């Protein structure tokens, strides 16, 4: 039962208020895209033990989607940020780098 802070309304929301949305920063591939790209978009997920980026929706709160960076092994949360971005914000990346020096980056 995680607690994640919604970056829109500022509420420290318990997991029962949130709906999970899987891995963040996926790139959509539409009609005409190669099979490998579409397959990766639909099915390939990192599922790391360690630093991970996820989509969450404050479903029983403000209704907004946001993204969270956390460690799947220790449940440490590095930060949450609005969903309207294609890559993690620099301050969160810096925070992760500081705490997990051997982290290879989100890609």
């Amino acid at each position, binding site marked *: *039962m*995680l*607690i994640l802070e919604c970056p829109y309304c500022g509420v420290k929301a*318990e*997991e029962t208020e949130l*709906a999970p*949305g899987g891995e963040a920063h996926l790139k*959509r*591939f*539409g*009609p*005409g*895209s190669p*099979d490998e790209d*579409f397959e990766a978009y*639909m099915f390939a997920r990192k599922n790391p033990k360690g630093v991970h980026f996820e*989509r969450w*929706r404050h*479903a029983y709160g403000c*209704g*907004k*989607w946001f993204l969270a960076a956390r460690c799947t092994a*220790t*449940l*440490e*949360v590095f930060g949450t940020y609005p*969903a*309207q971005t294609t890559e993690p914000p620099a301050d969160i990346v810096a925070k992760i780098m500081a*705490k997990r020096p051997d982290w290879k980056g989100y890609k």
Partner: protein
Amino acid sequence: MSTRLAKGGRLIDRAAPQDFTFNGKRLRGFKGDTLAAALLANDQMLVGRSFKYHRPRGIVASGAEEPNALVNMGEGGRFEPNQRTTTTELFDGLTCTSQNHFPSLEFDIGVLNNYAARFLPAGFYYKTFIHPRAAWKHVFEPIIRQSAGLGKVPKDRDADRYEQAYAFCDLLITGGGIAGLQAALTAGKAGKRVWLMEQTAHWGGRAPVDGVEIDGTPAEAWVKNAVQALEAMENVTMRLRCMAAGSYDHGYVLADEKVADHTPGDGRPRHRLWRIRAGQIIAATGAIERPLSFAGNDIPGVMLAAAMRDYLVNWAVAPGDRTVVVTNNDDAYRTAIALKEAGLEVPVILDARATVTGDLPAKARALGIRVEAGKAIAKVKGGKRVTSVAICAQAGQGAVLEEIACDAVAMSGGWSPVVHLWSHCGGKLNWDAAQAHFAPDPARPPLNHDGSALVVTAGAASGVLLAGDVLANATAAAGGDVAPVASGPVEAAMEPVWVMPQGATIDLRMKMWLDYQNDVKVSDVQLAAREGYSSVEHTKRYTTLGMATDQGKLSNINGLAVLADSLSSPIPQVGTTTFRPPYTPVTFGALAGEARGDIFQPLRQTPIHAWHEAHNAYFEPVGLWRRPYCYPRPGETHEQAVHREVVNTRTNVGLLDASTLGKIIVKGPDAGKFLDMLYTNVMSNLGIGKCRYGLMCSEQGFLSDDGVVARIDEDTWLCHTTSGGADRIHAWMEDWLQCEWWDWQVYTANVTEQFAQIAVVGPNARKVLEKLGGMDVSKEALPFMQWADGEMGGFRVRAYRISFSGELSYEIAVPASEGRAFWDALVTAGAEFGMMPYGTEGLHVLRAEKGFIMIGDETDGTVIPQDLNLGWAISKKKADYLGKRGQERPFLASPDRWKLVGLETLDGSVIPDGSIAPAPGTNANGQRNTQGRVTSTYYSPTLKRGIAMGLVKGGLSRVGETIEMTRLDGSTLQVKIVDPVFYDKEGEKQNV
């Protein structure tokens, strides 16, 4: 025999006798007794039978770790099996019965298993019940089912109520012994919001029993002062009878408070389940004493040394007159001393250590107790009660040196910290070789959201066992620096003893119990090791060690030490099994809380619900909605009612409460562009005032929802979804708008509950609306697939000419608050035109007669619109829509796909639900091939025969073919493939 002493008992009130029954026998205890203490006070040492061998079982422990003394508690609506007598507080009128025996506790046929024990070793099931194959179903399984399980299943509805509550604190301290109290005092004085909970009914834990002195006063007085000080702190909340069941992510803790277990029927909730968010958790959960593994260590009368001390000091109960104490540490001497000082006999203390020094043994010797160093128990003798012990050298193989008569044995194999709350959420353990136990490694704690330590242990849970160390450790855990000083005797080091005597022969090892409840012995674990079970987790499952209701609180460390020895591996390398919540069982009632009966889940009702109830509607669940299935009249079956409703709708006019239909407004400059991505067809070019049927697919291309879209104005559309799909589709829209196309200017609003929507359906529909009066509802003014705002019978309405039945049909929306009044007006106006309400089953039959698909019947998440002959609703011109790329995958274009057809039997009967069409040959798994299945099947009262839709390989190209289908019972029937539109193929009736 075990008996109540004339004096003493710090927890009992001799002025308040309490009557109770055990197996129908009337017994008497005192207020403050646990059930176990009261049973022992009445010389009831035998309290149950073990699971596998049905061996006689007595009380072993005095707390939550008790594996044996489980009873069926209560009667009727308050019956509950597997209740631990050691944690059950006695109350007047308590009734309980022993478990797992037939016909009686004293004489149990199942004990035959005991004599066959040689043939029932570890893994017996896996080795035995393999051949012959058929015997499993007809012989083995019925016998195993008959003998499986402890206790009985409650038959009546639970008479009690349960509640759940939330709490938040900076610091949650679990355990109300001196460690927990000291941690709470420290944190409380520092101003933290503290919760302190204790699973028993008393503060103070073991210290008062053990005679500890703190800051120069007896522990009992120190505890009293500490509790008073804490009660005076506004920032400290204290709960007795409250067991922390589990710790979870980010400081979430579940705790079960036994509010009224000891006062049943007093009107309070029986349990309260606390859902707590703590900034940090201090586990001051103490330690549990381990048994020693010697032959006959399961015979009633053999108890943990500290438990025997508890019974003596807390409840003035002496489990035996002559007690032999056997130990590998100094602590058990306290029991011998306490027994002796109470005037009871201790014939000998057998200490497995070669040399015995220290304050406590000296005191025992001074009291005249014989202390034998380097000695062990070769065997305990007795059946339903200990009669004597045979003594041997610990270093040997068990040659008997002497036999001593006794009626009880107190054993101590050392102490293991209770690390459950530490381990539940990821805390790691270190092996402490000096004390022979696993203790929390402070360097590897479970982590909180910010990377700090979520759980800290205090006191014995940290692995420190002496009172002075406990208080210092607890003070530090809570961030303090000045700890009270506790004095006590100096204790010599313990010595690990895993098997007694260390070279015991197989005959002895076959009688050394590790897990009392599940009957796992030293020989079983050694057998598992020989058979290749090197992982502790596999050994646990193979032997069932630690899998009983006590979850191995007594047996795990001893078991894995025996395993490690058999594997010649160090203990830390073998490791522990995983600690999982709950710490002790939590009753289902507490987990369900108030969510039972009428408030099991929230129900959604339309504004017209009360009318349906008043008119004998039979309801069916549709998501969380309750919708009328049909409205049976007196003497009618549901089936007859449905048929009447369908025929009346086709011939006169029907009325349907369609308020549950999903209604989502999509608005904004980019709304048209957005809907073109969402639906498979084009919605942006829909004219204002017009309606269009649309399909929505997942990104994989599979059909997900359908409904009619209406264009309201230049930048506003209203999307109808299925009743069950409104919330899901609204969330789906928001996901795409927020996470993919966040620069598009579109707003959505789910207005499903803002409007009541009523369908007026049938040849007389227009007449009914004209009778109401108001807006022009003629074909010219409001043609098929258009909508108009207006006034009708004095109501503001929006009328849609859409049809899910193939009849002339209006769906009319009014504000929800006016829904019931509008419905009543329609009922009145329709009376002269033969209007009747119809329910969801009538709706299904009407749509199936027309070959209209239903999401969830014709679709199952693997069906694309093209499978349902809905290619016409898929735009070929659009560059993109959700699901288009998925539908480009070659396998979805295969001619072998199952496609929608109509199905009918040759004799007009109805094809049963679930029928499938087999095909020749078998698949890779050796199962029969199939070529199709039924998706919707009904009796059509309009056509007076069965009609069905189904998905069949090849689809409409096979119209006219007859295929064989198989019913669920395996019988077959001949089915003809036909067009799925059974009624009014040209669609003339809806367009009038």
